[in-house]
């Protein structure tokens, strides 16, 4: 017998021993970062960057496949006991010797996860990880002239690129409210001092928002540069228009954080995506009834919120708990009790 066949037999035997659990349920107790485990990471250090931003040093599990500069990673963190998933850009170079990676997080007002990570994350904490992803990356052939146009935390993916690649000619225009709000400011200035980077800081508290037309003055040769832009939607929209107005849209690469904001309301259009049905629902009718009326096969039980026989994935949108009024927004892995939830805006129920 080959050794793989032997190993798979041994594994089958082990599964019989641990039934109804899996061997991994026991192995996770001692070695959560081992090869073959669900991908996780351990926070090993938290370094403050500015008043409201911090860099987390993470040791990823053995299954981590590595990233390309500019990519982001989705992480699952338990905040107040609830697992929440968010995406953050990787800011570490790809060849860090110790195998650690870093993400840099800026606390946004009312942001549950970002505030938790910046202010209360503790070294030693386990987090869930996805493999890195995203196509906001450099092409294989290094461009001769590069422009980075960033604002706020939009600098994070760019920092990953700067730390990873030596450029011959790179210009950065970065916007932040005040000098002390510029994330990685010391490092950026050191690079500028070494003449590895030409840096322009725009301080929006004093200078006002960056008018994209000013680019001609700040970076006269911008049309010749391969550009990566990351920041708030307003800036990116303006940039996209500007680049196409000048006939060079292919030179611009953008990355948008928080693509869509969920609008919550009273009732809304409910999509049952597995069945392909869409109906209008009010804010008081349980989604279970809405689905059944539309002829969708809905699992159910007590119909009063106690048996959990009706839980169904909420793919997009938001619902309101009819008992408490609490709003639940769609996130990967979020399940709702359809018998006590009503549409709070348009939503998609996987049925």
């Amino acid at each position: 017998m080959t050794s793989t066949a032997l190993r798979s037999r041994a594994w089958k035997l082990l599964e019989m021993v641990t039934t109804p659990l899996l061997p991994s349920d026991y192995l996770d107790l001692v070695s959560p970062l081992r090869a073959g485990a669900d991908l996780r990471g351990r926070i090993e250090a938290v370094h403050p960057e500015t008043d409201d931003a911090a860099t987390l040093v993470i040791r990823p599990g053995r299954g981590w496949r590595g990233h390309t500069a500019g990519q982001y990673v989705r992480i699952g963190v338990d905040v107040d006991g609830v697992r929440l998933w968010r995406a953050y850009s990787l800011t570490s170079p790809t060849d860090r010797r110790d195998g650690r990676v870093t993400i840099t997080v800026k606390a946004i007002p009312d942001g549950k996860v970002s505030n938790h990570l910046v202010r209360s994350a503790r070294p030693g904490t386990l987090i869930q990880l996805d493999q890195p992803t995203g196509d906001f990356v450099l092409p294989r052939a290094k461009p001769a002239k590069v422009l980075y146009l960033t604002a706020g935390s939009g600098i994070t993916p760019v920092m990953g690129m700067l730390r990873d690649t030596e450029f011959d000619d790179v210009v950065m225009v970065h916007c932040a409210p005040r000098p002390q709000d510029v994330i990685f400011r010391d490092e950026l200035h050191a690079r500028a001092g070494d003449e590895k980077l030409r840096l322009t800081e725009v301080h929006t508290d004093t200078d006002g928002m960056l008018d994209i037309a000013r680019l001609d003055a700040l970076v006269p040769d911008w049309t010749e540069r391969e550009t990566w832009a990351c920041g708030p939607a307003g800036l990116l929209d303006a940039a996209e228009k500007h680049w196409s107005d000048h006939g060079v849209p292919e030179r611009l690469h953008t990355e948008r954080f928080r693509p869509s904001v969920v609008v919550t309301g009273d009732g809304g259009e409910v999509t049952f995506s597995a069945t392909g049905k869409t109906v209008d629902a009010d804010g008081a009718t349980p989604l279970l009834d809405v689905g059944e009326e539309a002829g969708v096969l809905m699992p159910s039980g007590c119909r009063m919120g106690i048996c959990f026989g009706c839980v169904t994935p909420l793919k997009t949108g938001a619902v309101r708990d009819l008992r408490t009024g609490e709003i639940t927004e769609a996130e990967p892995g979020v399940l709702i009790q359809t018998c006590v939830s009503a549409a709070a805006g348009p939503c998609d129920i996987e049925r």
Partner: protein
Amino acid sequence: MTAIDPTAHLTATQIEELGRELDAIRDEVIAGRGEKDAAYIRKVIAAQRKLELVSRGVLLFSSFPPAWLLGTAGLSVAKIMDNMEIGHNVLHGQWDWMRDPKIHSTTWEWDHVSPSDQWKHSHNELHHTYTNVIGKDNDLGYGIMRVDEDQKWHPLHLGQPLWNFINACFFEYGIAAYDLELGKNLNKRGRKNPEFRARAKAVGRKIRKQVLKDYVIHPLLSGPSFLPTLGATFTANLVRNIWSHSVIMCGHFPEGVQVFERRSIKGETRGQWYLRQMMGSANISGSKAMHFMTGNLSHQIEHHLFPDLPSNRYAEVAVKVRALFEKYELEYVTGPLPKQVFSAWRKVFRLSLPNKKPGVRTPDRARELVAA
């Protein structure tokens, strides 16, 4: 139906007010759920797994008597933890709010021959919705016993103390049969029903896996300790079964617990539903360890009012719930385990015989309360 209704002194308005007060208790716990609770269940799960692992490890040497004793005791406790504080409660969705797919009612499987999803249906859905409604809640004697005067007597009931004892020893199989509604489905039509067949197959698969683990593989791994390990796992299952059977009997069988007629739940309001849960359940008093080992089902009344609140919160909820019982002059049926078990068993024996006078209940505490 009941000779004297212990809730007769409450007006409809009072019952709805009671419902609102209970809702407020629930909302408060939900608003306060957080990191500490999550840490609690994770700790319990980790402890259970370690205890099971160590116990099974010790049992590999179970031809050495002290190892047998230690391993058997450990495995019994581990199995009880798995079924009670962890399995029962996770399957109620008590921890779904954590959004951890590994500790979730939709993914959890327990050390029990009844597959999780079947148990969830018969327990969460039928028993918890129709608590103590004659003809609707099969937990009332599990379809094989008569536990209330208002249930019809049949000569078969003469043997119910014996059935109940056998059921206690093999409780997990009893539950599996019960979840399958085996009695109802063993006729020709039932056996042909594809839905029943699929469920029976799932139970068969689960039984095979469980038996293989406990009675074949684990003893085999013990080599020369094959027989002692076999005996140890059998004992652990027996202990777990008798323990959980006892705890569960205490939930709805002791004297003083009310049953309800089918028509009494027609158009039931939220307040009335709450009231039925209050009158239909009984608690066990005792130490923290006692509550833990019963999976907090010692707080059966609170569990029936709020089946989806995390079990570690029932103790604090109980204080407030009990105050409401007093306020509304209702009887909070509770007592130490031996007393409640005795009370339940006495009922099993008493009702194995026909009622003394048809239609009249022997005095129970509920009647005494009203009379007082």
